[in-house]
């Protein structure tokens, strides 16, 4: 695993409480090692394609970021002045958007190549830009009561000290341990007591292909104080040659205070040969509500794991997801909902569409601790297989130690209904189009869980775009 464990100069080595977390992470990863097919939590997601040997970790960028932030520079930095990305013949447009044929304008005269521009989302938002796992200053102006910093800044000011590294248990998650070892980039987001953020906060990580296959770690810490409300969106995006084989390792630590409410959305749209492994761990206090929706459509190995600890009474969580895939990809959705107190509620809906030679994985677990009575936990996973070579592996798990509970899970998989296709064909809709309509409708059930209509529309566009 030469590529994953490297010596890199990172900022903050002189801060003992922080550096010790990095050290512990390195030790824990060394002990745990990469998961093998025998590792139960990784039973179906085989990591042999991870190919970590030639991964490169870029050195610390923190001081440079700080300087730029201080200068309030324009935010458009291309050292060589050019666009930096190479357009090869036959590889199509690299700008990351999905155009109808012939509609791409980014090479016309007078038009700035889109990969030189910053990406934007089609809705009002506070946008924070990352490139290849490194923050691109400056931050947008946040309203009063919302504190956003570079993670290292929050380490320096000790704002992050209370929760950083204390939500996720690195002994259980090898990639989180690895993330600890390289902890530097990421954001610290804190919403103060009773503050309701007016617009979604969006983190865009944009990766452009380069010569090297880079490995980057992002660690975000999100704290919502009592009664606070926010929407947090993560978008992992890619432009450049399809061949690029980078590795993104993301860990989010989320703490919700009493009565706080967080909607957490994610779009994973990485390069088809890239690997993306993410873990979000959420700790919830009484009466808080957490909603997570993740759409995965890119990456070679893509794993989105969400672990929710419902620590106090009346906390509730909804963890929904959708995935759509083709090619040789493995997309893994793993959830672990721990009901640790009485009267806690959770629901999950995951829907997937698997084509090509791809493999969809769903592992969902509901754990109910002893005494966590009068809890309710529901889970449903449904998958659609489009091709003869597609595969779907499902492991929904219930672990219940209390008697007065209501728990259920369901899992189903199958192909498109011939009768429905026939019905539409008999009304003059072509077979391919009819298929697309059915797939869209299939995914819509999960997408409907996204409460913000603008974000839903944005995600729907990606969910419904035919895959290349």
């Amino acid at each position, binding site marked *: 695993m030469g590529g994953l464990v490297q010596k890199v100069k990172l900022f903050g080595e002189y801060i003992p409480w922080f550096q010790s977390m990095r050290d512990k992470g390195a030790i824990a990863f060394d002990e745990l090692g990469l998961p093998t097919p025998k590792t139960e939590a990784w039973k179906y997601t085989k990591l042999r394609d991870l190919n970590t040997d030639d991964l490169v970790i870029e050195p610390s960028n923190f001081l440079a970021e700080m300087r730029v932030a201080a200068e309030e520079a324009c935010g458009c930095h291309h050292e060589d002045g050019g666009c930096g990305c190479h357009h090869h013949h036959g590889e199509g447009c690299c700008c990351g958007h999905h155009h109808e044929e012939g509609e791409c304008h980014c090479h016309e005269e007078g038009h700035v190549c889109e990969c030189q521009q910053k990406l934007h989302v089609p809705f009002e938002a506070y946008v924070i830009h990352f490139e290849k796992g490194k923050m691109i200053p400056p931050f947008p102006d946040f309203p009063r009561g919302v504190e956003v910093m570079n993670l290292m800044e929050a380490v320096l000011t000790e704002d992050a000290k209370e929760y950083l590294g204390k939500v996720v248990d690195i002994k259980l998650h090898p990639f989180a341990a690895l993330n600890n070892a390289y902890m530097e980039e990421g954001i610290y987001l804190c919403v103060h007591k009773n503050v309701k953020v007016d617009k979604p906060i969006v983190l865009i990580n944009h990766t452009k292909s380069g010569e090297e296959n880079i490995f980057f770690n992002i660690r975000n810490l999100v704290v919502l104080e009592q009664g606070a409300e926010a929407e947090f969106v993560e978008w992992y995006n890619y432009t450049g040659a399809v061949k690029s084989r980078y590795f993104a390792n993301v860990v989010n630590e989320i703490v919700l205070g009493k009565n706080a409410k967080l909607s957490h959305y994610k779009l994973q749209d990485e390069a088809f040969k890239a690997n993306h492994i993410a873990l979000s761990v959420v700790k919830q206090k009484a009466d808080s509500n957490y909603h997570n929706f993740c759409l995965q459509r890119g990456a070679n190995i893509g794993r989105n794991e969400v672990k929710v600890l419902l620590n106090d009474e009346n906390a509730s969580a909804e963890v929904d997801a959708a995935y759509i895939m083709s090619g040789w990809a493995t997309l893994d959705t793993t959830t672990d909902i721990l009901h640790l107190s009485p009267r806690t509620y959770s629901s999950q809906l995951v829907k997937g569409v698997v084509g090509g030679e791809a493999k969809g994985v769903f592992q969902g677990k509901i754990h109910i601790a002893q005494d966590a009575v009068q809890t309710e936990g529901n889970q449903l996973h449904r998958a659609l297989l489009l091709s003869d070579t597609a595969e779907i592996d499902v492991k929904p798990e219930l672990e219940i130690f209390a008697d007065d509970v209501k728990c259920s*899970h369901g899992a189903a998989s199958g192909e498109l209904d011939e009768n429905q296709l026939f019905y539409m064909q008999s009304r003059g809709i072509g077979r391919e189009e009819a298929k697309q309509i059915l797939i869209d409708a299939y995914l819509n059930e999960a997408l409907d869980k996204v409460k913000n209509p603008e974000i839903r529309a944005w995600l729907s566009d990606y969910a419904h775009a035919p895959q290349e």
Partner: protein
Amino acid sequence: MNSQKPEIIDESGDKYKYGFVTDIAADSAPKGLNEDIIRFISQKKGEPDWLLEFRLKAYEFWKTMKEPTWAKLNYDKIDYQDLSYYSAPKQKVTPKSLDEVDPELLQTYEKLGIPLKEQEVLAGVVAVDAVFDSVSVATTYRQKLAEQGIIFCSISEAVKEHPDLVKQYLGSVVPYTDNFFACLNSAVFTDGSFVYIPKGIRCPMELSTYFRINAKNTGQFERTLIVADDESYVSYLEGCTAPQRDENQLHAAIVEIVVNKNAEVKYSTVQNWYPGDKDGKGGVYNFVTKRAACRGENSKVSWTQVETGSAVTWKYPSCVLQGDNSSGEFYSVAITNNHQQADTGTKMIHIGKNTTSKIISKGISAGFSNQTYRGLVRVAPKADNARNYSQCDSLLIGSHCGSHTVPYVENRNKTAKLEHEATTSKISDEQLFYCEQRGIGEEEAVSLIVNGFCKEVMQHLPMEFAIEAAKLINISLEGSVG
């Protein structure tokens, strides 16, 4: 040689009525497991060389294996060298008829409610093979069955009398490399039943094996092999009990079933090994590998199990659906009370086209017990139109027990339709109140509700078994309410 006396007096108030010990002289192998012991067993049973070789190969392989730890079970490490791998009631000569069987043994089975005297049985409904510790002591109705060409005897006899059949099928469904406990069994198995149903024959009566562990510090390793040839049918029952002892007894069995074209096998188990006392002391460790191979077209296998006993249960009756249009069914009721632990479920491997499988699992946990349903449904790339329906329901009684569900679903064929559902709940207060209001006591009400909860499975049991099983369920749950 050692004769045994009852060692503990039952003061726990448990209602395990099969907890007595038969005082009978026994031939036992010394403790420990090594090549010599395997040779000793093989020699004792007068086995041919090929079987000894099979055992030794298994033993060599077993030495390289590690005991699995993935099950949600928590038990003291088993010292495989501290067990005796062979124990047989001493008999001067091999009995030719029931009259020659030791009366003490006959009495034991009478006490257990297993009539071995043919005339006493309800006119020919059940034929019984009685296995006591490591040997089969009697098989009834052999003559009558033989008239139709059905072979029903102990596996040791089958090795001698029908070596070709045994050689052809032994280990063909569960190879000795399969898992730790199956491998151990392959090395040291002592007895069990062998059934062969020839082409086109419907077995006229239920066949049954009754297993009893008696001797102290022995493991029971039985091996059952059932072969149903084309267009045949058999219904097979299995029951088991053991005396109440302070230490844990080991039971590691293998059941192999081969089902050919258009044949059907129904296998029912009522497992009632000693579950240990109220504080979880003693009880049988039950590690069983059961597997059926549906080799022919339209073949059918159905597993029905009622699991009430054992301190630890590790058991996954499986169906390998190789033949086109073959079908597998699994109906299970598992009840755990006090400190019992059960990790049980099934595997349905769809290989042939149009194969169907159905899983109905009902789990009831009470007291401090823990129960896990662990199942696998796998659809191979060529299993077009495979169909599976799984339903796992759990009922929890009391706030200290646990119930877990771990189904694995692996689908590699787009035309397959797979459904899985699971629910967990407790007995609702409304239901209890309704019963109590009508003058039904709390315990009786619980048993009424539990029986209703299990009904879907119970109706798949043969009649004689269903009555016994319903009684067992009530006994198992006694003391779990209030």
